[in-house]
């Protein structure tokens, strides 16, 4: 019994009319790494917020810790004194303060009027950094650090606050593969120190690599808790979505005409001598480690940066792109990686977000915008992409991640491109929505669009590409067809 760090039973939560959590039980062992899995909107965040004291559960819930008596709710104060901490995806750090100050910030809040000693704060921070064994400089400013380093700062901070139970929300979402490895090692060392960790992640391979057990929620209800031993990604996504996902490899033979040809394309310091041909109706997987030059190449193909050497041909004719407007005019569209920030104007309506790339078109022939045509265009795309939208006049921020991604796609598809570049289209999108997005991508290719799919998830690339190009340090290191390889060996090639 005393190896249970936290047990929650009969946890329910109702917001207005909807029951977000329905009689969920949750159990966390001491020193365990547990995964909390489920699609977006399944109630994970609500459960975390209840366990962290942010929300009050409906009556009837029982929470117990170790061998203490059960309580009916966890107050924020309880959460603090029990050492329950959440590291949200945004990390909640202070970019302008030093690493040391971020780590000891809770002292500032707890005793605001005690005179400070900078040196003592630095010493304490250093002690935590050493305990975690990470390469952090206590004096550097957090704004100068990479996301991975910032995450370490956030971990140091909860350690310093005496964390016993740490929830990590999507901790690997913006990390490179090596950084993920470091994080997973740190996670293991924390668990060896008796700290329990709850991992929330959409990357199932990581979940299976680091967690001992996985608790699956679906539509606010508990599906079950399973050992990760013998668990496969396919089975886990089935449990999360409650349906069989149609994820068969594409591997379609492709022999369309060349649409886009790159001949020894280079941009100094970013990539060199990249030659490849994209055919009509082809999905070309472009992969490689973060920093291998994938995104940089995409920026050049989209006219955002000029190449320093080589040439680009579109339908056999040389093409010079001076700006991304040139690229759009020539039928090239680019869906950026950070779509939620760069791809959408969050507080504008779904209609406006969809139409923003073609406002000029919609003004023709009379020179002013026709609201009917605008609504017609949006309605058409919403239907074609199967987006769930109750009212297209609502702000785009009211949509779920997967549906927002569809709007970004719609926005670019509205420019009627024949080349579509997708930069990590599934980052932060849950399993069910991922499948939906790939269905759309495949359909577009079948209709004759040429697609460059950039991703660092070998599985995605292997499953959905007709051809795979692996970049390494700015050069093409391998070109292969998925038929001739397996997901696992592709993963090895990427990391080699």
């Amino acid at each position, binding site marked *: 019994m005393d190896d249970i760090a936290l047990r929650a039973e009969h946890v329910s939560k109702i917001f207005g009319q909807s029951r977000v959590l329905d009689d969920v039980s949750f159990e966390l062992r001491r020193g365990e790494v547990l995964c909390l899995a489920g699609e977006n909107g399944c109630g994970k965040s609500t459960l975390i917020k209840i366990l962290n004291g942010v929300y009050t559960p409906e009556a009837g819930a029982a929470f117990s810790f170790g061998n203490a008596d059960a309580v009916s709710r966890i107050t924020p104060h309880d959460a603090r004194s029990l050492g329950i901490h959440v590291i*949200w995806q*945004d*990390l*909640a*750090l*202070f*970019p*302008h*303060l030093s690493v040391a*100050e971020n780590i000891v*910030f*809770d*002292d*500032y*809040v*707890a*005793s*605001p*009027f*005690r*005179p*400070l000693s900078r040196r003592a704060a630095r010493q304490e921070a250093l002690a935590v950094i050493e305990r975690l064994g990470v390469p952090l400089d206590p004096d*550097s*400013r957090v704004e*100068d650090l*990479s*996301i*991975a380093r910032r995450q370490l700062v956030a971990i140091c901070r909860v350690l310093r606050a005496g964390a016993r139970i740490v929830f990590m929300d999507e901790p690997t979402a*913006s990390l*490179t593969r090596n950084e993920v490895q470091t994080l997973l090692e740190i996670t293991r060392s924390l668990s060896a120190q008796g700290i329990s960790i709850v991992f929330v992640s959409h990357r199932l391979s990581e979940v299976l690599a680091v967690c001992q057990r996985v608790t699956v929620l679906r539509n606010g209800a508990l599906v079950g808790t399973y050992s990760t031993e013998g668990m496969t990604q396919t089975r886990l996504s089935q449990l999360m979505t409650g349906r069989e996902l149609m994820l068969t490899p594409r591997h379609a033979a492709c022999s369309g005409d060349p649409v886009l040809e790159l001949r020894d394309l280079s941009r100094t*310091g*970013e990539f060199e001598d990249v030659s490849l041909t994209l055919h009509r109706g082809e999905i070309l997987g472009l992969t490689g480690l*973060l*920093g291998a030059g994938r*995104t*940089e190449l995409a920026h050049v193909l989209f006219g955002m940066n000029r190449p320093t050497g080589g040439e680009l041909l579109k339908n056999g004719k040389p093409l010079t792109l001076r700006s991304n407007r040139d690229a759009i005019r020539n039928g090239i569209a680019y869906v950026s*990686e*950070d779509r939620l*920030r760069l791809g959408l104007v969050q507080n504008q309506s779904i209609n406006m977000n969809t139409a923003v790339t073609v406002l000029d078109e919609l003004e023709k022939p009379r020179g002013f915008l026709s609201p009917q045509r605008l609504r017609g265009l949006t309605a058409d795309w919403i239907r074609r992409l199967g987006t769930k939208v109750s009212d297209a006049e609502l702000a785009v921020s009211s949509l779920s991640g997967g549906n927002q991604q569809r709007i970004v796609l719609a926005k670019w598809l509205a420019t009627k491109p024949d080349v579509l570049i997708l930069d990590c289209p599934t980052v932060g999108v849950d399993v069910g929505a991922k499948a939906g997005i790939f269905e759309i991508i495949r359909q577009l290719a079948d209709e004759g669009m040429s697609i460059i799919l950039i991703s660092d998830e070998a599985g995605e690339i292997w499953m959905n590409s007709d051809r795979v190009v692996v970049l390494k340090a700015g050069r093409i290191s391998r070109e292969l067809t998925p038929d001739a390889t397996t997901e696992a060996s592709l993963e090895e090639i990427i990391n080699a």
Partner: protein
Amino acid sequence: MRRLHLGTEGVLAAIIVALCVLLGLTTDTFLTTQNLFDLLNNQSVNMIFAVGLVVVLIAGGIDISFAVAASVVQYVVMTLLIDHMGGGSWLLGIVLSMTVGSLLGLVNAFLIHRFRIVSIIVTIGTFNLYFGLLMVFTGGVSIYDVPDWLYYSVPLIDLPASRGSATLYLPVAVMVAMSLATGFILTRTGFGRAIYGFGSSPEAARRSGVRVGMVHAFAYGWLGLCAGVAGLMQAHIVQEVVPNALIGQELPILAAVVLGGATLGGGRGSVTGALLGVLLLAVVQNGLNLLGVTPYAFRMIVGFIILVAITCSNLDKLLPRRAVSQEANS
């Protein structure tokens, strides 16, 4: 970038020293005790405003009502003292100015915090409100008959100089005291660091348990307090209270504080920086006067300095080397 940024104060100080040397060589009046003391005497009011304002900027806000608030404080305090307290004294004057000033600041804090209005809008509102009230109630009439304690200047340091003597007056000491107090709160107390934290990331601060209402109340209240003190000092220096004596000062002081490393985004800035920002603009103005340049050129040059300074501090963001780290950040 970091090297440049950590050294905002250092860079400013170096520029000021360089300017001083230059002016010392080109004029024979600049590097005299008399001129330097006058510079400090004249700038102490602006400096007190600046150390108050930097707190608001660090907390991620902005306030443009402080200068007219200081005028209101002058009127209220003088009227109270003259009509109801038989003239009062320095102690009473300072305490009353601080009280009335911080109350006016708290009005801003209350509106910003309670109704979630952006600080610039609130303070544009109170700027007009305070000034309008002042003009309505005073009818634009100045107070020339200030109490004796306020009328006579209080010399602190008196040095013999080429022409008569060079004297440092009370306002400079008050400025130093206000700067030290503000600096202590900002750098030596947890509350001060929490203000930086709040300015840097309000959401993170809120989640860490920082009492946002307290941060707002302190930032705007402290600026109000500083404005009250600055108002009293200004009345002391000019020996009268004129309703429109301070209006228009808010933007140059804001510019000086931004020059000193504070940003409108919050989380950045320091008392030293704010003081040096005011000093830099003062030295430039003083130098131009001594060189016989038309005063009309001053604004132009100040604008130019600010644009150059801000551009330089942003240069690194425009350099291509950042591309890789930006990708890692996204």
